[in-house]
C-alpha cells in the first residue's frame, strides 16, 4: 500500500470513530434544551439564577460542545476528501465554514464553562449595582446569535450533503438527513435571533434526531471503508 492510500485508510478510521462519537454526544445535547427553561435562554437574569441553582446540565452540554468541536477536526477533512472532486470550490469553502463554525462553537462553550459559574454566583450574591452591571454586560458570548456556531456548521452540512448526493458519495437518504440537520442548525440561528421558542424547539428536536443519525451513519461507513481497505471514503 502506498503512502497516500495508507493515509486515507488511517484517516477514515480516525474520522469514523470521531463521527460516531460526535453522533453519540449529540444525543446528550438534547439535555441542553430539555434542562434549560425557555425564559432563561433569553433573559440573562433568569439564566444566572437558574445556573446558580442547577449548573450541572448546562455545564455538561457545554463540555459536549467543546468535545464535539475538537472531534470535528477529524471528520471535516475526511468529508471534504470525499466530495472534493464533485465540486472543488464549494467543497473547499464549505469545509472552511465547517471548521470555523466548530472552532467558534468550541471557544464559545469553553468561555461559558469557565466564566459563567463566577458570574452567576456574583449575580446572585451581589448588590443591585453589581447585578445591573453584570446584566448590562450579559454573558461573555462570542457569536451570540450563532451565525457561525450553527450557521457555519449548518452550511457545511447542507453543501457537503448536496455534493455527496450529486456525486453519489453517500446514500440518498443519508444525504437528505444531512441536509435536514443543516436546516435545523440554521433554524437554531433564526430561533435565537427572533427569540421564537417554537422554532427553537423544532430546530432542537430535529437536530436531536438528524445530527446523531447522520454522524453515526457516516462514522460507521468510514469505519467499514477503512476496515475493508477501500480507497477514498465511502463511495
Amino acid at each position, binding site marked *: 500500500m502506498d503512502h497516500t492510500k495508507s493515509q486515507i485508510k488511517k484517516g477514515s478510521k480516525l474520522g469514523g470513530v470521531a463521527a460516531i462519537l460526535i453522533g453519540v454526544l449529540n444525543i446528550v445535547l438534547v439535555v441542553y434544551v430539555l434542562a434549560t427553561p425557555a425564559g432563561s435562554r433569553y433573559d440573562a437574569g433568569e439564566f444566572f439564577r437558574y445556573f446558580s441553582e442547577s449548573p450541572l446540565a448546562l455545564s455538561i452540554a457545554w463540555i459536549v460542545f467543546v468535545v464535539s468541536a475538537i472531534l470535528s477536526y477529524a471528520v471535516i477533512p475526511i468529508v471534504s476528501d470525499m466530495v472534493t472532486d464533485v465540486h472543488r470550490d464549494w467543497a473547499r469553502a464549505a469545509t*472552511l465554514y465547517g471548521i470555523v463554525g466548530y472552532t467558534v462553537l468550541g471557544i464559545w462553550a469553553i468561555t461559558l464553562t469557565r466564566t459563567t459559574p463566577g458570574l452567576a454566583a456574583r449575580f446572585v450574591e451581589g448588590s443591585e449595582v453589581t447585578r445591573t452591571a453584570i446584566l448590562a454586560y450579559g454573558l461573555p458570548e462570542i457569536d451570540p446569535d450563532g451565525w457561525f456556531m450553527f450557521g457555519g456548521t449548518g452550511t457545511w452540512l447542507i453543501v457537503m450533503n448536496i455534493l455527496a448526493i450529486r456525486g453519489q458519495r453517500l446514500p440518498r437518504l443519508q444525504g437528505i438527513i444531512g441536509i435536514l440537520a443543516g436546516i435545523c442548525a440554521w433554524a437554531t440561528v433564526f430561533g435565537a435571533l427572533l427569540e421564537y421558542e417554537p422554532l427553537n424547539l423544532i430546530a432542537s428536536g430535529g437536530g436531536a434526531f438528524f445530527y446523531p443519525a447522520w454522524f453515526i451513519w457516516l462514522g460507521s461507513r468510514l469505519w467499514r471503508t477503512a476496515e475493508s481497505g477501500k480507497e477514498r471514503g465511502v463511495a
Partner: protein
Amino acid sequence: MNSSTQKDRLGSICAIMTGVLYVFIILYVIAVPSGQRYDPGQFFENYAENPITMNVLWIVMASIAVLAFGVIPSVGALVQTEYPRLVQAANGLGLAGSAVSAVSFLTMLGRAPGLAQAYVNGDSATKAAIAAIGLPQLDPFNVLVLGGVGAWLLVVNLLALQAGKLPKLHAVMGIGMAIFLGVAVIAAIIQSELLDQIAAGVGAVCAPVWYIWVGVRLNRTPAG
C-alpha cells in the same frame, strides 16, 4: 467536471462581491464621527440614537469576511508558485484573520444593542462599568483582522508579481493595500486618527479595484 481545469467561479463571484461590498466601507469614515471610534461612552450614546449605520457596516464587514473563505484559497491557487508552503501559511493567516473578523463583527452586532441601551439607561456606576469594558471586540487592535489579511495580501501579490501571475499594476496595488492594512493596525495601537484616515482612504480606493479585478481574472483562469 474535472476539478483541475474548472474555472474558479465561486472564488470569482466571492471576489467580485467583496470588491463591491468594500465600496460600503467608505461609509465608516464618512458616517462615523471620529471620536466615536475610540471613546466607548460616546459610541454607545451615538449607537443608541442611530444603530443603523453601524449595523449595516458590521453586516458588510462580516459578509466580506465570510466571502473571504471563497476568495483566499482561490487566489492562493492562482498564484501558486515554487513556494507552496509559503502560500499555505499566508492563506492560513488570511483565513484566521477573516474568521476572527467575521466572529468579532457578528458578536458586536449581537451584543451592542443591549449594551448601548444599558449604557444610556444606566446610572453613573453602570455607565462607568460598561465604558470601562467597552465593545466586545475579539481583536481590538485588528492584529489578525487587518494584519492577517494584510500578510496574506502581501505574500500572494509579491509571489504573483515575481511569477507574473497577475498584471504588474494589479499586484503593486495589492502590495500597497497590504502595507496600508499594516498601517491601520499601527493606527489602532497608537490611536492615531490621522493615520487611520489615511489607511482607510487608501484601502477604500484600492480594495474594490483589486478584488473585482482578481474576481474577473479567476473567472478567466483555470486554477489548481
